[in-house]
């Protein structure tokens, strides 16, 4: 098979992986090498689905021995199979990189003969890139669950970021939809990676030349909407991953039905709004000082589709508002709908010079159409309406509320496999 035909098969099979980040580590080039990496990451293009392209995202092979219900590459699927030679991946990466199409490579793979054999082949591609081609651009390597710890360690020495996909938000769903993948074979490498990253950081503090281990950290991904877990379960899982495993990112991927399987739900369309709300809640966990238990609870296990999760929290906590812009501390400012990390920082910086007026707030870039219901400026409110939550809710929904969806479509989740 020609490289072009393989590329078509193996990029088409890789597109369901959400991560494309090229950020998180800075590496200089040198006169004998090609490439470097930038701390903030660089997006090189945006595909027709609006997602950014920064890495050559491909599978080494889609010829899988596993038969996971949700996966396009499962062994029982009658799709065209292809596998790259190591050289093909290396050449594609270098040719694309020299033309500035990409920031680097994101290599994943179906499980070919065994997890170890697959991981070994993936690592050899990356080794060739790093040693023969002296490639110093970004590399994201997927870890195949079930491969040996030595291979995980080797992967982390060559790649900037490594990731193990948690695939589904619960052990039960994993057992039902991906029976050949074991929970421990996913969690074990994750905690090993977390440990290695920490150890490498500690060692580098005392010995600057110690090798870096996955300097851009570890991420994971789970499919949302293929199994019955609530948003609360998902967020608690993410919270645990961030706190205990020290993950950089958890990616959520709206379930796109690619197979017919009676274990899978029948959806009219991928749950994109749910995915979007989960990302918003994820940001609240990482940058806004929220806990999963503040965002959701057992009584209210799913995110409100009409409001972003911060606005939803604000509507449930009228006692917290109004927030005085000229006095509130950073953490309090962050709780105001319409004020993000950037504008909260800017408010603090601008207050050092003078009292902030309503006009000044607009200059800073606060989204006033949402913030105006929740703040005062030198004691003066923006909206004279009484703050009954119901009234506020309606004004945010019907007025120029910003990031709200006027009428939430009824949730349709049919799980024939569960009811049968």
């Amino acid at each position, binding site marked *: 098979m020609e490289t072009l035909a393989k590329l078509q098969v193996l990029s088409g099979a890789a597109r369901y992986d959400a991560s494309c980040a090229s950020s998180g580590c800075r590496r200089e080039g040198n006169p004998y090498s090609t490439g*470097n990496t930038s701390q903030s990451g660089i997006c*090189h293009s945006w595909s027709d689905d609006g997602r*950014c392209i920064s890495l050559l995202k*491909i599978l080494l092979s889609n010829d899988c021995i596993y038969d996971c219900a949700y996966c396009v590459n499962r062994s029982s699927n009658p799709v065209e199979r292809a596998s790259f030679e190591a050289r093909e991946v290396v050449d594609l990466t270098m040719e694309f990189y*020299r033309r*500035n199409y990409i920031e680097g490579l994101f290599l994943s793979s179906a499980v070919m003969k065994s997890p170890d054999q697959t991981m070994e082949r993936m690592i050899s591609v990356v080794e060739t890139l790093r040693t023969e081609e002296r490639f110093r651009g970004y590399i994201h390597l997927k870890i195949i669950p079930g491969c040996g710890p030595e291979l995980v360690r080797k992967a982390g020495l060559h790649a900037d970021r490594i990731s193990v996909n948690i695939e589904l938000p619960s052990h039960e769903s994993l057992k039902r939809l991906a029976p050949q993948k074991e929970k421990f074979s996913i969690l074990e490498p994750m905690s090993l990676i977390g440990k290695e990253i920490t150890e490498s950081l500690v060692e580098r503090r005392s010995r600057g030349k110690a090798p870096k281990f996955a300097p851009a950290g570890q991420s994971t991904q789970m499919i949302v909407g293929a199994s019955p877990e609530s948003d609360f379960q998902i967020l608690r899982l993410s919270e645990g991953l961030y706190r205990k495993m020290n993950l950089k990112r958890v990616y959520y991927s709206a379930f796109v039905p690619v197979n017919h399987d009676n274990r899978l739900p029948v959806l009219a369309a991928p749950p994109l709004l749910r995915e979007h709300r989960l990302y918003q809640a994820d940001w609240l966990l990482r940058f806004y000082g929220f806990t999963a238990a503040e965002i959701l609870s057992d009584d209210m296990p799913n995110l409100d589709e009409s409001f972003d999760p911060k606005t939803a929290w604000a509507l449930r906590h009228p006692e917290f508002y109004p927030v005085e812009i000229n006095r509130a501390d950073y953490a309090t400012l962050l709780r105001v709908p319409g004020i993000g990390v950037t504008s909260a920082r*800017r408010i603090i*910086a*601008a207050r050092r010079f003078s009292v902030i007026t309503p006009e000044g707030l607009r200059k800073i870039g606060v989204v006033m159409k949402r913030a105006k219901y929740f703040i005062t400026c030198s004691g003066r409110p923006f909206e004279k309406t009484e703050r009954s939550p119901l009234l506020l809710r309606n004004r945010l929904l019907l007025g120029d509320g910003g990031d709200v969806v006027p009428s939430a479509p009824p949730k349709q989740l049919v799980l024939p496999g569960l009811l049968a």
Partner: protein
Amino acid sequence: MDRYLYDGTSEGLLSAVAHILAGERDVERVTLGERENTLFEEGVYLATNTAAAEEFFSRLQMQASEAVYTFYYFTMAEKDGMETSMLRYLALAMQHGSKVNGYLTNPSVKEIVTVSRKAGRELHRMKGLLRFEKLQDGAYLARMEPDNNIIHPLALHFSKRLRAEDWFIYDVRRRIAARWHRGSLTLGSIEQFTAPALSEEEKAVQALWKTFFGTIAIPERRNPRLQKSSMPMKYWKYLTEKQG
């Protein structure tokens, strides 16, 4: 209001600002603009004093290093008519140091920081969107038409990244080019540009990239609006993946 004029160069701007600030006048009562040499033009012309400009610049670097970046990006925007704002911004920078960029409630600071941030954003964007094509002699060529004059910092970025290759970046609108040849960078203007012939393999590599670009999108998630807002159509002209 007193009006001052300068010759329109960055150096002239800095030397005029140095002169006005040295006079310890209230900058809120002074305006500064480019000399147009019309008959009825009013104002005091301040001739460029290179030494004064350099002296002011190094003082700025010491006292407000952030403001130096802001000034640098501001000049890339090639915006006319904002000299008065720049004068007031620099006066505040000398007074408050690097934290001046946080004083966004001040109209002059807001104006200057916004323009400079826009140039910085386009520079970052172009680091991703620039496309090189391989020529017959083995060198690479990239063409672009950015809104801001970013070729210098952009070329510096690629001089660290693609060090082993020889390449050109050509700003079609401004007719200026950056050339990286055997490890050294030169900038110059180009009077007449004729596109050189592409190498044999170029078409094949471009076909591979276009194929990848097509298949990496998830059909069920098609979203052209999001694509255009992240990657405005004005940049598509030189994007390999958006050609034919």
